[in-house]
């Protein structure tokens, strides 16, 4: 939800830059970049080369140090890069369906058919390799921001999940943990000047305890 006045922290700039300056431009038809967590999706949406890379801020450590109160705060950010692929079985149907194909040709086509879970596994490995190479590319050291904005960029963990069958498709997900360090300016928050204000005080005229809505029983 956007507000009239909002302080953008550096981790938000990094998140947007990973999506718009690092992963987005490198898609080249191999995957799609999504910039927020999604609760659910149809397997068909991520079928084949429509596989997705979803980036979002996951967690952060802000260690307290000398001068922290007066200057910038050091923010060790963790971003989750989630990968999702879906595949279906593949075979040379042109040969299998052709009545003029010989038994040997049909048998060879059947033996060469590929299982969806195998294809999903290979597709995911390829996507992990692509994402890792992009994120760890020396030219992306600053994750698409101006030099000096980001330090200690590092892919620290890769996790591949179990294959899930969704109807006629097989879905496989994985995640990459990307960590980096940024400096956060603490400029305070001036609040939002809205068109109206909401009175949050509970004011009940007959309430002897006043404004709480709670009375105390007396004996």
């Amino acid at each position, binding site marked *: 939800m956007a507000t009239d006045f909002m302080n953008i922290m550096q981790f938000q700039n990094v998140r947007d830059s990973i999506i718009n300056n690092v992963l987005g431009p490198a898609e080249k038809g191999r995957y799609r970049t999504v910039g927020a967590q999604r609760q659910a999706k149809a397997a068909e949406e991520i079928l084949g080369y429509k596989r997705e890379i979803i980036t979002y801020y996951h967690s952060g450590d802000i260690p307290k140090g000398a001068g922290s109160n007066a200057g910038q705060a050091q923010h060790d950010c963790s971003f989750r890069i989630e990968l999702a692929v879906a595949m279906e079985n*593949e*075979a040379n149907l042109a040969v299998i369906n052709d009545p003029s194909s010989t038994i040997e040709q049909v048998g060879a086509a059947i033996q060469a*058919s590929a299982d969806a879970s195998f294809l999903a596994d290979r597709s995911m490995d390829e996507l992990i390799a692509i994402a890792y190479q992009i994120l760890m590319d020396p030219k992306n050291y600053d994750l698409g921001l101006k030099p000096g904005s980001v330090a200690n960029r590092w892919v620290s963990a890769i996790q591949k999940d179990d294959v899930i069958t969704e*109807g006629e498709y097989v879905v496989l997900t994985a995640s990459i943990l990307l960590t980096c360090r940024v400096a956060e300016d603490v400029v305070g928050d001036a609040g939002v000047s809205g068109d109206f204000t909401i009175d949050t005080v509970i004011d009940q005229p007959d309430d002897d305890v006043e404004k709480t809505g709670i009375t105390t029983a007396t004996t």
Partner: protein
Amino acid sequence: MALNLRERSEQDLKFSLEGEWALPVVLIDPDGNKLDTNQNTGEPLTGQVLYDSVKDNPQTGAPVVTNKPVVTLRRSSLSRTPEAGEKWFVQIPVDPSTTATLESFQLDKERPPEGGRSIGFIRIYLRRVKQS
């Protein structure tokens, strides 16, 4: 000698599986041999075809109707039956008509054929295949 109850049930599959509700089915074994003839009658092989099946979504537990056909055949009509782990293809009509074009599906690796040996039918689960 009179047939026992199971034998009679097996005989009834001629009507329940291969009767007027039946549709043409062609099995293709892993070697490429087509099984398209009923061993009992010598006529084209037929069976029961259900185009959609219901499965529970493992993440939500909600039932999902999926386009994964299920075919049930009379065992005695087949010269060979699919076994779990084998790569079989099954051709069924694209729509429930005896004259419709046949479409190829693959045996679902995750759901092996269900036995039914006690009565004599086999239920096989299919998965859609894309042209490679």
